[in-house]
Each structure stands twice: as C-alpha cells, then as structure tokens.
C-alpha cells in the first residue's frame, strides 16, 4: 500500500518520503488546519527543540548568507592585487578576512550541527508522542471503534503515517525557516549588489515558480492515479504467491504471466508518463540559471565598462550570480516542500481521525463496583452494528438466566450468536432494550469491574508473544503457579503444556503459531478461568478440540465452577446438548429455547442440524 518516493533536493540531499495512498478522497468538509492542530498537540515536551531547531537553522542560514559576501571581499581583494602583486602587509589583510571566514564557517558548522540535533530530537519526539497518543487512544476504544478502523488500518496509522509525519516535520521545521530566509536574504543582497540588475531574478521567480508548481501538480495527480494501479499490481502478485497451488494445479503459469505482463506494462507506461513530467524539473531550473547567468553577465559587464567600474566591479558580478542561483534553488526547495506537505496531508488526516475519535462506550458517573451474581437477563433487546444498518443484528431478545446455569447457543454463521453474548460484557451497547447482569443494567457498572466478572473467550482468540505463564497471567496478574496449573487442568491444557520441554515457560510465538489450534483454544480457556469470573462465555472456543476432551472440559466446569454462569457457543450439538438451556439462534432472532430433548421435538433447525451431525457420527 505504501510507496517510498524519493525526491532529490537541489543540494543533492535525498529525502525519502513514504507516501501513503488512499482510495478515499480526503474529507474536504473539516478544515485541514484543525487537523494539523490535533497533531501539533502531541509536540508537548518537545516544544523547546521544536523552536530551537528553526532558531539554529536561521543562524546557520545567516552564516551561509554572509559567507558569500565575505568570500566576494576576499576575491575582490585578490583581484585588486592581481597585477600589483602581493606584499607582507597584504598578507595580513588577507589573514584577517580569512580568520573571519573561518570563524563564520565554524559557527555555521556549529549551528548546523545544533540545528540537526534539535531537529532530530523534535521530529523523533513528535513521532514518539504521536505513537503514544494513538496507542493510548486505541486502548480506550470500544469494540465498535476498533471495528470501524480495523486492526490493519490502525497498524498503518501507527507506523507508516507516523513515519510520514516525522519525516515531514524533520524537513518542515528546517526548511520552513531556511528557505524563505535564504530567499529573502539573497534577494536583498542581490539588490544591494546589483540594484536594478537584480530585477532579472525577480522576473524569473514567478516564471519558474509557475512552471515548477505546475510540474509538481500535474505529476502528483498522475502519480496518485498510477499508485492505485501499482497497488493493484502488487495485490495481484500477492494473490499469485498465495494461490500458487491453484495456478500450478490448473497449469495457468503462462496465463498469469501474460496477465501480469499486461498490467505491469500498463503501470510502467503510466509511471513513465508521470516521470517524464517530473523530468522537466531540472531542465527548467537549468534554463533559469543559465538565463540569469547570461543576462547578468551581459548587463553587468556593460555597466562595469560603461561606468568605468564606478557602479559595479567584477567581484560584484560573481556574488550577484551566486545570490541569484541561491534564489532559484530556494524556489526549487519550495516546490519540494510543497510536495512533502501534500504527501503528508493524508497521513495527518488519518492520524487526527483516530485521535479525535470518541470511544463509543463510557463509564457511568457513579459506577457500581461489584457484580452481585451471575444472573443474566435480556429485556426486549435489539441491536444494530451501526445506526445506518438496515437490518437489526439482534431483534427482540428476551432471556432470563440464573446464576450457575449452563447455556448452549447454536445457530448458523451470521445468526448473531456472538453478537448476543458480546452484549453481556458490554463490548457493545444495545440499540434498544437492556441487558442486566446480577440484576443491574450493564451500563451501571464500572467497565473494568464488569469485564473482570464476565470472562469471554473470543472466537478469534489471540495469544501474545511471551511465555505460556505470561499469557495465562493476563487473566490474573498475581496468580500463583499453582493457580495457573489448576486452571490449565480444568481446561485440559496441563497435559500438553507438561509435554513441552520448557513446560509453563514455553515461549509462544507471535499469533500463537507454534501451538496447534486446539491447544491454543485450551490455553485461552485457562486464561479466562484465571479471572475467576461470575460469568464465563466460550464463543466457539472448543471447535478445534476433540469431542472427548471437549466433554472432559465441560464436566470439569460443572464440578469445579458450579456457580459460574456458562455460555457455550458451538457448531456442535454434542457441545451443547447437556446444557441447562439451549438457545437456537436464527437470523438475529431466538428460534427456540429449551433442553436438548425439547428442542428436538419443537425446533426444526435444531433437529436438522442434529440429524446431519448425527448421521456423520460424533465428529463435528
């Protein structure tokens, strides 16, 4: 999705800007300034370096502006002695000028060094704060907020977008001062030295400015278009890598090559068209510089000769040309800054979007800090994932569950089983009606209290990189090793953990890829058990566990945590058939509630699923 695009500055410095490209046009309604402000709030403790950096940049630029002036004096001085020859006295004069120059160079070096230092501190600091703010903000997000942004988009915002802003800030606080300063100073010096002759540069500025900015604008438009195609090209490569078995199985190698060739050639020619526009940059600059050089040389030479060197001298000519080139390069830099800023605007927008997002769930003013028991009640509950959604994800749910009951929930994909249980721990708020836990509306509880009492083993569960112990202690930070082992025994995880060489200290890879699906699920169950909840929700959490172990886990629950209300969502009838109550979900509605026998008689969906699975034999 990202493309590193490199821009060459006139002084040969090279910037890498990671451009993030977006399919969506930035929202024009909200003013960009406001978004920039949101970002700049994160500068905080780095205000000082943020100000010191431009300050030293200014000083450095000043030195750089003065230096040509002194150099011109040095050259003039030497020129004057050209025919007379030098003597020891002249040498002293020369040394004075030289010392001044040396001092200036040293100062410039010092200022440049400091500017670079502060600039690095400021930009990296801003990046750090931005990452921190984003990260902390996301921690406050509700499920709804997370769904809205999606995990991978949040990752991009925290990484690529922050890097873009860091880069732009690094460039920005240096060049924003340097370029206008150099330009102004050079212009002033040009006028001081050249008088009316300097008007040549002034005339060239708008001319070149317009050309450069037109080039940038045209090219950016084109690039944005190509980038979309380029993304698609890369996506097709990715597709081919992932689907290589299909490609090879159907012997479609040549077909794919041809397809890729067409797409790649198209991208290439589009890139060429865009690059060709950009390529006009340097001839334009050269043209400007050459024109200026020739005009200035011609005019100044005439002035010198006709006024017999009274108005101007040769030294002036060289310096004037140098200032002129300075002005024009600044112009080039300006167009580059324009590019960098334009490129970072989408990143700014994306980051401020996250930073200004309000969590859709808030703690009540006077929260309840205790959950009395595991009673759960749904009163006329309806739920939509977004206000705009046409269809309710849940409609008209009424349920009453007593503490300690085991509830099985069964239903096809998309029947809102997960949605139903997510309302219990207030991962989402109901659209209509209310959910009660321990006799109180879930909205009255302190969120942490509620979630500590309602343990959920999510369907898409995740283990984190770290040891098994560390992962388990997510449930209870202070759990003793005995408690860990006990929970694992309940979840039938102890046995396989003990079979690992490092046992409970076994490292889990990122995403838990080094344990099998069933093992992962059992670890997740143990982790949830360690919270000692009043309500335990297993959202299809034993799908990869064999039926025998599954049954053992359920028996262990019954014997060891009889007072905990247990919700078990499953595709397998065998996992729910011995529950106190089974809820059959269909299309966001409760199609039937009852025991296994009752449902077999009364509920057609339940019977159908049972028959299919029973025909198979126990598995699945």
């Amino acid at each position, binding site marked *: 999705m990202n*493309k*590193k695009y*490199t821009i060459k500055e006139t002084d040969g410095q090279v910037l890498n800007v990671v451009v993030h490209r977006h399919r969506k046009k930035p929202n024009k309604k909200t003013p960009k300034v406001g978004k920039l402000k949101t970002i700049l709030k994160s500068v905080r403790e780095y205000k000082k370096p943020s100000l010191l950096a431009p300050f030293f940049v200014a000083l450095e630029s000043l030195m750089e502006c003065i*230096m040509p002036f002194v150099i011109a004096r040095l050259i003039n001085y030497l020129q004057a002695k050209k025919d007379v020859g*030098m003597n020891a006295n002249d040498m002293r004069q020369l040394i004075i000028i030289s010392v001044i120059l040396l001092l200036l*160079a040293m100062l*410039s*070096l010092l200022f*440049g060094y400091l500017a670079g*230092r502060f*600039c*690095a*501190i400021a930009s990296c600091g801003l990046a750090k704060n931005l*990452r921190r703010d984003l*990260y902390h903000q996301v921690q*406050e997000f509700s*499920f709804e907020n997370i769904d809205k942004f999606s995990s991978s988009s949040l*990752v991009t915002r925290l990484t690529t977008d922050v890097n873009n802003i860091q880069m732009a800030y690094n460039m920005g606080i240096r060049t924003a001062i340097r370029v206008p300063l150099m330009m102004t100073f050079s212009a002033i010096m040009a006028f001081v030295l050249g008088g009316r002759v300097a008007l040549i540069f002034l005339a060239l500025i708008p001319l070149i400015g317009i050309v450069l900015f037109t080039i940038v604008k045209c090219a950016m438009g084109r690039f944005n278009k190509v980038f979309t195609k380029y993304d698609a090209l890369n996506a*097709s490569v990715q*597709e*081919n890598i992932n*689907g*290589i*078995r*299909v*490609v*090879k*199985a*159907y*012997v479609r190698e040549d077909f794919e*090559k041809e397809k890729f060739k067409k797409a790649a050639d198209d*991208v290439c020619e589009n890139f*060429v068209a865009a*690059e060709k526009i*950009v*390529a*006009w940059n*340097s*001839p334009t600059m050269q043209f400007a510089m*050459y024109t200026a*050089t020739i005009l200035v040389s011609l005019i100044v030479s005439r002035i010198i*000769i006709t006024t017999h060197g009274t108005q101007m001298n040769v030294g002036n*000519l*060289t310096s004037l040309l140098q200032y002129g080139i300075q002005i024009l390069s600044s112009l080039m830099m300006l167009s580059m800054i324009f590019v960098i800023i334009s490129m970072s605007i989408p990143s700014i927008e994306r980051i401020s979007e996250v930073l200004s997002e309000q969590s859709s769930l808030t703690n009540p003013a006077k929260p309840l800090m205790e959950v009395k028991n595991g009673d759960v009640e749904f009163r006329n509950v309806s739920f939509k994932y977004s206000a705009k959604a046409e269809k309710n994800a849940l409609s008209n749910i009424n349920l009453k569950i007593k503490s300690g009951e085991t509830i099985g929930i069964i239903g096809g994909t998309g029947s809102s089983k997960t949605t139903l249980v997510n309302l219990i721990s207030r991962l989402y708020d109901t659209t209509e009606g209310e959910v009660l836990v321990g006799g109180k509306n879930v909205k009255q509880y302190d*969120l*942490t209290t509620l*979630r500590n009492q309602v343990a*959920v083993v*999510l369907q898409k569960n995740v283990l984190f990189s770290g040891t098994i112990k560390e992962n388990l202690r*997510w449930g209870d930070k202070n759990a003793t090793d005995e408690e860990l082992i006990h929970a694992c025994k309940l979840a039938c995880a102890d046995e396989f953990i003990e079979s690992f060489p490092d046992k409970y200290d076994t490292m889990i890879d*990122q*995403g838990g*890829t080094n344990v099998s699906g*069933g093992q992962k699920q059992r670890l997740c169950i143990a982790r949830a058990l360690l*919270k000692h909840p009043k309500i335990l929700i297993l959202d299809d959490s034993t799908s*990869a566990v064999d039926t*025998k172990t599954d049954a053992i886990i359920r028996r262990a629950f019954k014997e060891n945590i009889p007072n905990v209300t247990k919700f078990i969502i499953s*595709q397998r009838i065998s996992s729910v058939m011995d529950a106190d109550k089974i809820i059959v979900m269909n299309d966001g509605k409760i199609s039937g509630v009852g025991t296994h026998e009752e449902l077999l008689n009364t509920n057609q969906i339940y019977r159908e699923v049972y028959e299919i699975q029973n025909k198979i034999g*126990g*598995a699945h």
Partner: protein
Amino acid sequence: MAEAKKIPPRGPMRGGGYKMSDVKGVLPRMLKLLFQNYGLAMGIILGCLVISAVAGIVGPIFLQQITDKVITPALQDKLPTWELELTKLIMIMISIYAVCLVATTVQTQILARVGQRFLNKIRKDLFNKMQALPIRYFDSHQHGEIMSYYTNDVDTIRQFVTQSLIQFISTFLSLTFVICTMIHYSIWLTLVVLLGATLMIFITKKVGGKSSKYFIQNQKATAEVEGYIEEMMHGQKVVKVFCYEDEAKEKFDQINTKLCNAATNANHYGNTLMPIMHNIGNIFFVILAIVGCVLILNNVPNLGVMIFNDDNKFRVVGFNTLRVGMVVAFLNMSRQFSQTVGQVSQQVSMVAMALAGAKRVFNFLDEEEETDEGYVGLVYATEDENGKIHESAKRTGLWAWKHPHQDGTVTYTKLKGDIVLDQVDFGYVPEKIVLHDVSIYAKPGQKIAFVGATGAGKTTITNLINRFYDIQDGKIRYDGININKIKKGDLRRSLGIVLQDTNLFTGTVMENIRYGRLDATDEEVYQAAKIANAYDFITRLPEGFNTMLTGDGTNLSQGQRQLLSIARAAIANAPVMILDEATSSIDTRTEALVQKGTDELMKGRTVFVIAHRLSTVQNSDAIMVLDHGRIIERGTHESLIEEKGTYYQLYTGAFELE
C-alpha cells in the same frame, strides 16, 4: 509444510547492516543487465552527462574570460571593440548553455523512460521466475519475503538507477574535469584540495560508520515497536476483554521511548552530515586562499601540467610563477569540488541499500526452477469402433496419453484414471521422511479417502500425485505410465483439484470459474456453477456472474468461496479429482450444501478425497487412515468399523481430526 505463514516483518526489519563485501558482483551484474537491455539509451544518457559536465566546467571559464579579456582591458581603455568581443563571448556562452540544456533535457527524459522500463523488466523477470519456481520454494519461504522483492527491493533499485548511478557518473565526470583543470593550474594547490577531499571522505566514513551503528539500532527498535503494534492491534479485542489496557500501555511506552532515542541519534547524524561537509569545504576554501597567497609571496615556483601554454606551444609540464588570477580561479573550482564530494557522500548509504536489495532480487532470480523431463503428453482423443485411439484437435470428452518413442513412433493410451502409488517414501527434506511405504491402488472411477490428524500426510500424498513434490523412493503410475515421464503441465491438467484454501483471484465471478478452462462459454460456466450448487447464490449477488471479487473473495462467505472453487474444478472437467475438503469454519448447514456440490463433481471419476468430516468417507471404495506418514488402516467404511481401530474411534468421536 509450513501451514501457518508468519506475519512478514515490516519494511525496516529487513536487512540490517550493509557491508559492501556482501554485495560483491552485484553492481557489475546490475550494470550489465542495464546496458544489455538499454545500451543505446544508456549510451545517449552517458553522452549527455559528458556534455553537461563539460559545460559545467566551460561555463565558469568563459565567465572568467569575460573578466580577463573584455572587462579588464576595456577598463584600461585597451579594447575599443569591447562591445563586439563581449557579444562574441556571450554568444559562445549561450550556445554552450543551449547545448547543455538540450543534453539535460534529453538525458532526463530518456532516464525517466529507461528507469521505469528497467524496473518493469525486473518486475516481469521476478514474476516469470516466480511462476517457474517449484511449490517447494513457496512452502519454505515466507510469502511476505517474496512480496518484498517486488516492493522494497525493486524500489531501492529504482532509486539507484534513476538517482545514485546518474549522480555518480556525473560526479565522476565533473571531478575528472575539475581535477584536470586544477592540475593544469597548479599541482601544489591541487594537493591541498585533494588533502581536503581525503579528509571529507574520511569524515564521511567516520560519521557514516557511527550513523550506520545508530541506523541499525534504529532499525531494530523500529522493528520491535512495529511488531508490537502489529501484535497488539490485532489482539486489541482480547486486551479489552481482559482489561489489560494499562499493562499494554506501559510496555508500549517503554519500547516507544527506546525507539525515540535510537531514531533521534540516527536522524541526528543524517541531519548533520550535510552541514559538516559543507563547512569543511568552506574551511578548505580559506586554507587554500592563504596557501595560495603564501606561495605567491614567497615566490615559490608553481608547477602545472599544461597541454598548451599561453604561447600555444605544447608542453606537458610547465614551471611558472603563481598568479593571483590563478588562485581565484582555483578557489571557485575547489568550491565546486567540495560540493560534489559532499553530494556523493550523501549517496553512499543509498547505494549500499540498493545493492543489498539488488542482491536479494538476483538471488531470487537465480533460484532453481521447477524442472520437467516429461515427454508423454495429454491429447484430446477419439476412439474408433475397433477401440483404436486417435488424436483429435477438438475437445471430445476423451483424453489419451501420447507416448512418443525413441524410434519415432507414437502410441496412444486412453486416459482412464488408474493411479497406483507403489511403496512411496517421501520427505520434504531428505533427512526427515514424512511418508513411509505408502501404497495405494485407485482403479478408474473409484473414490479413495484419506483421513488422519493434521500432519499425518494426507495433503502430502496429493502433492505427490500432481508432482508439486517428487517422491524419494517407490513409484507412482498413472494409467500404467510412470508420472515422471508425463509432462508436468499435462499431468496437472488431467487432475482437477479443489484445495482447502480457496484462493480466488481478483476479477469477476465468471472469470474465476472460467479459470478452470479458459475457453469455456458463458453457458458452460453457468452449467458448472449449477453442478457445484453455486448458481443460486451467484445470481443473488449484486451483479450476478459479473460481480467483482477482490482480495481473495473477501466479500463472500467461506462456504460461497468453497462453492466457487468447486465450480472452477467442475468446468475443468478433469478425469481425476483431488478434493481437499472445507474445514470446520463453515456451519453444518452450509457444509451440507458444499457437500452436495462435491458429490455431483465426483460422479464417474477417480477421486482422492481428504476428509475432514467422515460423512464424505462412508461411501468411499477405500478409506486410508493415516498416522505419522503411514497408512495404519485401510478398507471400506463397514470393514473399518468392524475392525474397531482408529477409524472406529474417530467415527465415534473419541478423537478429533484437526
């Protein structure tokens, strides 16, 4: 087989420190590739660069000439025709600049083309190479790594070709000219400049070395933070459920601060290199002026290499006295010199990165391709009344193996779908055999099922039949022909495969089904969709068969994707089928639908089924129960139930197939 592909490291995690010695031979190879394909264009670019470089030197000289030959004498009233002389010189300057401008324009325009086309070529080379690689390569490499060749590495090459390379060439040229001119004026002063340049290079190396240390630290810290972000963002819901926000913040703040420190150091060096170089240049400028003047004052004889002296007499080495005018000219040149050296120093790290990237690309291009020594081909056939097989140009519904012999005769064998695995041993790596002594006899039209736990070797067997992998020992025969003798493409064409991972491609539903047979008519596509039980849901999609699928069909449910991949196999209409069935992620009722689709497909064909649900297995002609790469039980459903072995336990639910 690596079933779970790890999340590929994000950009900065890759590489690490770059050492020139690691990339030996990469530069010549890249240049060779560049010049071989774009020789003419590169030649023109080089020519233009030479012109630009010459103009860059000649321009200032003419400026000097204006001063020396026009202004100075005119001021002393020695040149009454100064106006004419001035015009002449200006005209020369204009023409030089004009030529230079043209050269620059031509060079940049051509470069824009060459740069992109070169990349395009590399991209296509990569892709073609990728298509030619064996499945083994994809199983043993991270997909993210392969992807990064196309993105990051191609990009660094782009930067190298369009920027660094050109800059190096032009720098080299102008340095050569500058040094020549400098030597022409004065060897002594040249030595001073060279001393300065040496110092600059030394500092670049010093600073560069330091900065690369910080650079690596920065990369490491970035990788850590980005890895953590990646992990936590994807586990954010778990964080919420466990109220783990505070701990998550604390850990993040720690590594974030670490990254900030590393990044500050790395950026600091990056930011200060330019001012350092710039001002060292300035300092040497001053030193040069002083040295020059001291030399003049002390009347030190100047030594210069000159081709033509002022009196137009050819001399190689000349002694004269150093004049102030020479020093002035020299000073200007030394500025140019230090600027150029500074610019090059900026490019060094870029080049190192580009070469490292190019090396990875070249390594990929040098990977060993899938070989094919097969010579038996698959042809459409007709059978005459005598039972004799004839080759046909059209699709007839009948296939035959075309077997050319050494004596030039050709025999045709009817494709029946008789597949025999005879005592096959296999390991993905030679040291670790995963299939032991596997023998399977599949008669035409039979259905053979494989059951067993993950890693038992079910998929491996199918990988051997279609030669994604080659066996270590034993034989596989297809209609009596050793499959090693069959052309791989033709072998695979004769096998219809429905894989567990559906892998649809970006395109319409129609195009995705047609993937199975590219010349299928719309009508045939509909027919295939009906066979696969997919027709109904497709027609209910917003745009029916023209609905665009993106990102592996994310807009479809798992079950629907599976049905499409069945339709894709149905249209291929291959005589032998391999079905790797859907997993438990589909609910029971959808599974029943998928089941109907596959049942239809299996009719009248030799079928290998990898069963995840035992319902598909019951009516098989033979069921192979695999465990740790061995067939531990085989037989029909009834006989296996009777045996009361592993299959029985699976069937009664005591074990789970994972």
